[in-house]
């Protein structure tokens, strides 16, 4: 078991395709870190560089303080689970599980024992003599996991291994992967484009976009205190409402609509062009307007069981509110919408990289 360190790792494909841009991070022993980001964000490339399947253009990769930047994948003692599962179609399940052990010249008896153990952990003992083509997606997934755990590697790399499963199975396997990671006490890096997976699985989340790390933090923190506008919009579903506008005299005025609210307390440093961010669940409908309310028209109401998602129209921009399903909301109605000032974020610009302005009380708390 081991820790993994990346120092200013950059990957350029061909002459000019910058896939990963100076990524530095440190993953501790027995930690489960999730790389999350949209497609093309560089998360898989970063993982493949840790695996040794891609060579970094610049930078260093260390496993247990040893520089492995130029070490071949087979000598890194890392296991990887692929999105396509990448099982060996010509070998049985037993043959697939035994394959990494055969490379280590173990005795047949030891190989058999380890294969049986791994199969028991994953509940696939009955499938050992089948070929991968005779398995369902979920079973193939288990075999792929089994091939990783059977050899007790230094770290597990998971490249979107749940993406090919149906929704129900994905939720089940998510929990199973986490429990395997905890039981075995291994370092694990899990790559996904699914923010929900990142939220539920990781000890820490590395949010990536366009080859750069946007934030490294525990999942809750990326949700509650997103580092920038990109993270704010990416983490959470439905995503955060982001309204472009300007701040003047501690008052926010939207550029596209007539929304105008007071700046929440502690954010007095905000000025000029900004983005106001508020999560749909931190919005309520009130009868009496105050300094944090604005008037908006309902466009659409979606009932999701215990909650309803209300879509408001703000001068052509959509604004979502997540309300209890008992709340009386009528389509085409007009309501006073109140944002929770304590949960309102202000970003110091209108681009994805615009950073969140840290409220004064948060700075004080940190001190």
């Amino acid at each position, binding site marked *: 078991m081991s820790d993994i360190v990346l120092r200013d790792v950059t990957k350029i494909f061909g002459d000019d395709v910058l896939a990963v841009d100076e990524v530095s991070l440190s993953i501790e022993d027995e930690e489960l870190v999730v790389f999350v980001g949209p497609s093309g964000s560089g998360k898989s490339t970063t993982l493949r560089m840790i*695996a*040794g*399947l891609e060579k970094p253009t610049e930078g260093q990769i260390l496993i247990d303080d040893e520089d492995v930047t130029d070490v*071949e*994948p*087979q000598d890194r*003692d*890392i*296991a*990887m689970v*692929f*999105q*396509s599962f*990448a*099982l*060996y*179609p*010509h070998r049985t399940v037993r043959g697939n599980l035994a*394959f*990494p052990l055969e*490379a*280590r010249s173990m005795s047949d008896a030891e190989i058999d024992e380890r294969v049986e153990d791994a199969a028991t952990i994953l509940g696939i003992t009955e499938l050992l003599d089948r070929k991968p083509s005779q398995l369902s997606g979920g079973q193939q997934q288990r075999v792929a996991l089994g*091939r990783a755990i059977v*050899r007790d590697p230094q770290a597990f790399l998971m490249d979107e291994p749940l993406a090919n499963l149906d929704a129900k199975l994905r939720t089940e396997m998510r929990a199973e992967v986490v429990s395997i990671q905890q039981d075995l006490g291994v370092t694990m890096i899990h790559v996904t484009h699914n923010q929900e997976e990142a939220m539920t699985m990781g000890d820490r989340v590395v949010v990536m976009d366009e080859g750069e790390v946007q934030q490294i933090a525990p999942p809750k923190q990326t949700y509650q205190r997103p580092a920038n506008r990109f993270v704010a919009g990416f983490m959470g579903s439905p995503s955060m409402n982001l309204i472009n506008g300007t701040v003047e005299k501690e008052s926010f005025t939207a550029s596209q609509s007539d929304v105008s609210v007071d700046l929440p307390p502690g954010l007095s440093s905000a000025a000029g062009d900004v983005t106001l961010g508020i999560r749909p669940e931190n919005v309520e409908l009130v009868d009496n307007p105050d300094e944090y309310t604005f008037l908006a028209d309902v466009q659409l109401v979606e009932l999701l069981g215990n909650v309803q998602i209300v879509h408001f129209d703000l001068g052509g921009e959509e604004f979502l509110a997540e309300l209890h399903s008992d709340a009386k909301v009528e389509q085409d109605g007009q309501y006073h919408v109140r944002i929770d000032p304590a949960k309102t974020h202000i970003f110091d610009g209108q681009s994805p990289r615009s950073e969140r302005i840290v409220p004064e009380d948060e700075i004080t708390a940190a001190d």
Partner: protein
Amino acid sequence: MSTATLRDRVAAFADDPVTVRGALHRIGITAFVSTLLVVTLFPLYWTINTSFKPADETVTAIPTFFPENFTIEGYVNVLLTSGAIDNVINSIVVSVGATAIAILIGVPAGYAYARNPGKIGGKNVAFWILSLRMFPPIAPILPLFFIFRQLGLIDTYVAMVLLYLTFNIPLVVWLMRSFFQDVPEAVEEAALMDGYSRFQAFYKVTLPLVTPGIVATTLLVWVFSWNEFQFALVFTRTAARTFPPLIPTLVGGHETLWNQVAALSTIAMLPVIAISLLMQRRLIRGLTLGAVKG
């Protein structure tokens, strides 16, 4: 009453366009396939039939559909008296040699092209390789003849193998490239992660997966070398002469020994047919494996 029932049945049958159309469809297909089979199989049958007749029975006014005097004298005479056994041995040496070398060179080359598209010789090189098979073989015969004569290679195994390699290697590279492309790279990467070197990953994982493709390719290449006529005619005299150019020499001005021609033709066809039938399953899998992306 029974008449009425019959009439009803006929009416029902006629009213049912699905049944009528289905029946016509089946009759049409059966007739078409039968005709096709007769046209393709009759020459084979006639060749084999003739090969087992004595010489005088091959020229009777009323042809016999089965040998009346069954004999293997055609085979004995063509192989031993006419000495065709040497040519058959030459054919085996040349075709097996050219096939083995083409596979040994072409398979790794196909792999390299499949895994590094655009990196080796630019993106058009694969098409350039294929284009080597497109020009008519007659075009390079004259220049090659002078080159080979200068090198003293006329009528040698080396010349024949080299000539066939010119056409076989491009075909092997092209076919194997698409077979290798069908093996996901992730499977090889999984082997790397499992602790194998790149070469081990290739022969332990990728190679077993493309075996049907290699079998199909080997057969295609071998059949080409086994049947080839034009180069063999121009570049060989006696020592390295393969059997295809020998067959027309048996057709003489005064007398044609049809049973010997048929016997040699049967010897030429049989291995191809036998191997194709034996490997039918692997062959079809191999041919479709390359064609269909899965």
